[in-house]
């Protein structure tokens, strides 16, 4: 592209009298394009091939015919918060019509009308003030506009969702039931932070929901190219929705919160050109906020992960955990791989065949004591439950003062003149990506 290509407008006539004031302007680039087009038309009439660029230049005295080049001076680029873009322009911003990929098979009948009630059915009662409704709002959300270059009609996320059930979810559900049973047998006032792959967090919550009140902290929306596959969280939620409703009735006003996170929320990714950064940081509430909502003391906090190697906690939780610990609320960890599965699908804690919770209480006393040394986590070899020695310690993370620069953002293309959002930078359908060749 030539640097001296004309841009902007030039006025060719103005009027300024007592009767009227006005002017006319012309877009130089489009006037030039019209002239070039006319010359090409002439060349065709003369029988000169369209690809005879050299000849074209010689005859026209032009720099380039440039049919296939994109005039990038028409565009501007900037990063914007991905969630804000989705709220404004649709959950599938820049990927309209592209499918969501679902893992797992759902065999039970599904009533699509259930999606309309998903947010209500899964919102907490006691801990409503701590709930992050973002993800649950996404299925029925309607954008306030569409990108200027988007011509396809908007289809709500709800029309793309369906429930899933995977073996990992089924296992997490069984473990959640057992964990809730063990903790209910104790009288401790425990708050759970469940940090598993999203669908498994939901599944565990469904298993434990008769004892603990689920509090969603999923703070993003799904996207066909999303770094975080949060549509699977919704799909899992749809699968367990009837169970959540049933558990709520049994649970009544539980004052034990269970904060749910998707472990993929901070996922690293490298394919900037093709992925949509819908990552987010956990908005784990402060201890005073939890105490206020619970209207009583929380004695300790249990951080639930799949395996001991998932410890220490993810970076965005460090400050909060250290803060809880400093406020004399012990933060303990549990890796779910200490639960063993029997052939009938039941699970038990650390291989115990007793229905009594003694083994669990030995590892996790009701006062939350028993945490080991500060964890790097140099967990001792041979320990059947190395996570029980976990204890959070302060460390420097990139999330200490919030999300890093460009975290959870997407590059958008703006019209240079108007700053109107044309679309996503990566959208191959956009005119800015229609280069020649």
């Amino acid at each position, binding site marked *: 592209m030539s640097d001296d290509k004309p841009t902007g407008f030039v006025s060719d006539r103005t*009027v300024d*009298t*007592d009767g*009227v004031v006005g002017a*006319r302007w012309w877009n130089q680039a489009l006037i030039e394009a019209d002239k070039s087009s006319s010359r090409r038309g002439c060349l065709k009439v003369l029988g000169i091939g369209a690809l005879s660029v050299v000849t074209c230049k010689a005859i026209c005295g032009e720099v380039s015919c440039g049919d296939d080049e994109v005039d990038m001076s028409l565009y501007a680029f900037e990063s914007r918060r991905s969630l804000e873009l989705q709220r404004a322009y649709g959950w599938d911003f820049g990927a309209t019509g592209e499918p969501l990929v679902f893992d797992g098979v759902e065999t039970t009948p599904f009533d699509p009308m259930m999606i309309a009630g998903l947010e209500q059915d899964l919102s907490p009662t006691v801990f409503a003030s701590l709930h992050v409704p973002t993800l649950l709002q996404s299925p029925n959300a309607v954008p306030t506009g569409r990108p200027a270059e988007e011509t396809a009609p908007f289809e709500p996320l709800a029309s793309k969702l369906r429930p899933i059930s995977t073996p990992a979810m089924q296992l997490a559900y069984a473990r959640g039931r057992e964990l809730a049973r063990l903790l209910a047998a104790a009288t401790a006032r425990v708050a759970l932070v469940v940090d598993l792959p999203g669908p498994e967090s939901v599944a565990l919550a469904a298993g434990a929901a008769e004892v603990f009140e689920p509090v969603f902290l999923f703070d993003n929306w799904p996207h066909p190219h999303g770094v975080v596959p949060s549509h699977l969280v919704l799909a899992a939620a749809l699968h367990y929705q009837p169970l959540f409703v049933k558990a709520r009735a049994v649970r009544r006003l539980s004052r034990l919160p269970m904060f749910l996170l998707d472990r993929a929320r901070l996922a690293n990714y490298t394919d900037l050109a093709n992925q949509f950064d819908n990552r987010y940081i956990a908005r784990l509430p402060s201890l005073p906020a939890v105490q206020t909502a619970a209207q009583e003391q929380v004695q300790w906090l249990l951080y639930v992960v799949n395996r001991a190697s998932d410890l220490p906690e993810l970076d965005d939780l460090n400050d909060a955990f250290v803060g809880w610990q400093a406020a004399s609320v012990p933060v303990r960890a549990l890796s779910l791989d200490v639960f063993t599965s029997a052939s009938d699908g039941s699970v038990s804690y650390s291989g115990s065949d007793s229905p009594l919770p003694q083994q669990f209480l030995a590892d996790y006393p009701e006062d939350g004591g028993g945490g080991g040394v500060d964890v790097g986590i140099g967990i001792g070899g041979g320990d059947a439950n190395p996570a029980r020695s976990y204890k959070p310690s302060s460390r420097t993370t990139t999330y200490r003062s919030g999300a890093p620069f460009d975290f959870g953002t997407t590059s958008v293309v703006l*019209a*240079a003149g108007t700053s*109107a959002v044309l679309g996503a930078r990566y959208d191959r359908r956009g005119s800015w990506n229609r280069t020649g060749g």
Partner: protein
Amino acid sequence: MNHKIFAMELCIRMRDEGLSRHLREIVRNHPRTVSFAEKWEMYRSVRALLKANLGDAVKGCWDFFDEDGKARSDFNMWCEGLFTEEGARAVPSGSGDPTRDPRYMTFTMAFLLQASAPSVETLSERCNIPEAKLWQRGTFAYLLEQLGHLNFGSVKGDVVYVIPGADGWALTNEDLALEKFHYLRDIE
């Protein structure tokens, strides 16, 4: 290149000379050579003023045509309205009386658009207004808002003018009754 056209004219009852002065200054201060961003910014100011005073608009019209020949000829027609000073008064009208002898100003803008450009196509869709709503005040407000999404890289030419060009030259009820203003519709 094929073309489309969008044009709008509003006739606004003047409470004082402030609005017309402000709009004239915007037009006069718009440089001979301007970038796309400056052009958009100029119309942003215009749109804001017009929207803020839409309650005083008594007549108006707007067009969107997507036939190339019609677009070209209409754009020329709107330009001629400026060059021939067709709508302007030949003599001063004085300041009048706000209740018994009100004064009016008109603001006109027309855009010759590059057909098939995305933001033009979007504008085209959004100008698909039901007949019953064509001349409603809300429709003018809506269209002024939609102009904010226009990519000026896809605007081939634009013309803008304000009547009157000076205090004391505003239009009167008698002026608006002339046949040359019959294209202006009562705003509902």
